């Protein structure tokens, strides 16, 4: 019987592989609705993957909008200063949040569970204030607009379908990064998640891995920020509100907090739903709420988790009767 960790890996890589076909989207269609949906969904996936990384250690982090803002604004600033190479922007959008996350993590990760959650929630409000109060740097309430299109070694990627391509590429990079981190530190994260005291007891330096997770989550979130800013050619505070943190957490939980595939499924489903209800925006909110409650109360594994458990129980029963 394959060890659980191998089965987990398969589900996680599914989360990455599933994104690959989207690369074809910009070339397969010209429908602006599909473009918009793809953009929204991929950004949602990236953000909920950032949440997922921390959830591997049973840490709920609302920091994602803050680091998205850092990544997005960094990319915007780099572009408006003349460098538009895709690779440079991706690197900048990843590295800047990482640099900030290291000292921030040292401060914030000392806080016990609940305080940590509250603090990260408040952090987003602070980010908003800082964005508004520094107009020279960030454009304040106007944000940074008129960002030149991304180029790939000289080829501009400004057309609609190319914008989507950039978003999808960013998503794949983000998913690959998530897979890399969660696989490399799978045992450590799981040990901390399931029994922190025991983890320390067998030699796991818990603080170190919490920091790694926090920093990785920041980098991935930064990539999401870049994707948003690229799509809109604008960096604006309204894209990084604290309420969006709740959405991203919802995507991860509803889809299934146990695997990367869960984040992908959750983001896709909930974003499609909120688009369907877009005319009656409030209803989308209520539906989110209902789904969130249902998942927590009846299906704690989320969609992917519950399906997976169902099949595993079946095969365990079969093995049991075959013994």
């Amino acid at each position, binding site marked *: 019987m394959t060890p659980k960790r191998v089965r987990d890996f398969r589900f996680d890589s599914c989360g990455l592989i599933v994104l690959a076909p989207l690369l074809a989207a910009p070339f397969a269609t010209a429908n602006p609705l599909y473009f918009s949906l793809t953009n929204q969904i991929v950004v949602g996936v990236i953000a909920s993957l950032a949440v997922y990384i921390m959830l591997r250690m*049973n840490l*709920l982090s609302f920091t994602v909008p803050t680091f998205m803002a850092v990544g997005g604004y960094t990319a915007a600033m780099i572009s408006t200063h003349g460098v538009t190479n895709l690779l440079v922007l991706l690197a900048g959008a990843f590295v800047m949040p990482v640099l900030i996350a290291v000292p921030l993590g040292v*401060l914030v990760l*000392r*806080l*016990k*569970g*609940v*305080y940590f*959650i*509250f*603090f990260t*929630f*408040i952090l987003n*409000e*602070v980010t908003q*204030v*800082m964005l*508004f*109060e520094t107009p020279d740097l960030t454009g304040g309430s106007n944000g940074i607009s008129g960002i030149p299109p991304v180029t790939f070694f000289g080829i501009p990627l400004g057309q609609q379908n190319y914008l989507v391509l950039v978003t999808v590429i960013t998503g794949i990079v983000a998913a690959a990064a998530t897979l890399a981190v969660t696989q490399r530190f799978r045992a450590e994260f799981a040990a901390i998640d399931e029994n922190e005291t025991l983890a320390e007891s067998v030699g796991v330096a818990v603080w170190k891995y919490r920091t790694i997770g926090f920093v990785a989550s920041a980098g991935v979130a930064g990539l999401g920020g870049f994707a948003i800013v690229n799509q809109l050619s604008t960096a604006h505070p309204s894209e990084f509100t*604290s*309420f969006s943190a*709740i959405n991203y*957490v919802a995507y991860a*939980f509803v889809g299934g907090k146990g695997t990367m595939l869960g984040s992908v499924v959750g983001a896709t489903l909930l974003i499609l739903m909120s688009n369907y209800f877009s005319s009656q925006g*409030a*209803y989308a*909110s*209520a539906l*989110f*709420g*209902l*789904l*969130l*409650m249902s*998942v*927590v*109360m009846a299906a*704690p594994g989320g969609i992917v988790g519950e399906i997976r458990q169902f099949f595993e129980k079946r095969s365990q029963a079969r093995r049991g009767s075959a013994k």
Partner: protein
Amino acid sequence: MQTLVSTGLIGISLGTQYAMIAIGFTLIFGIMGVINFMHGGGYVLGGYLAYTLANIVGLPFWLAVLGAAAGTAIIGYVIEVLFVDKYVDDHTASMLITLGIYMIMTTGIIVIFGPEPVSGFRFPIRGSLRGYGFYIPYSSMVVLAVSSLAIAAMYWMIYRTRYGIALRAMADDRKCATAQGIRPGRMFPIAFALAMALAGLTGALVTPILSLEPNLGEGQLLKAFIVVILGGLGSVGGATIAAFLVGMIEACSSVYLGGSRGALVLFLVVLLILLVRPAGLLGRETRRA
């Protein structure tokens, strides 16, 4: 000089409001280990209930306020019994469930009352007290008086009545308390209802002065977070002190610094205090799940 006095009064007034909400929030956490993400919703609910009772049903304002508090309490009781009770001590689950309820509730309010701020819902007492170069609106004074009374009543209940002692026993050591015969099944819903009632009362009193719209809950919750982190989760005394601290800082920074800089100052203060005391000013170890 007058600015100082006015600022001080504003600070105290804000402090009592924040205390009302934070005390309820910290009570729920301290006793039940539940993170009530719909606590801000209690404030909004109180406002809309008062509005309905006063402007639509036609009750006198004071009756409407009482009705709003009672209504919020009842709703809180029901929610606890139906949804929250099973997830006591489970931080993540209780947080997400109450969040879901909050989202549904907000949608309900938007559907019934529309997304725009309510107009025509005003505090019945106008005008202000003027003297020696400062002024304070009568409405603020009334809110201050009522809030102080409510807070005093809470303290009296928690520290002087048998019920309050039972609540504190539950917060300290639930197994022990239950072994003594205190029944969580009865205590929890009542505690939850009381906490929500405080939030509802605050909403009913303050929204006619400031504004009433469906999305106010988030802002209130945020304030509650700040106060409660500062004061230490689970500590009623801490929440009270922190509430006044936050109120004062906010009053001072909005008067002297202006705009959202005040929020930054607040946050920096919180950050500094947390660096020195990661459990808040009077916090105790967070409940082990």
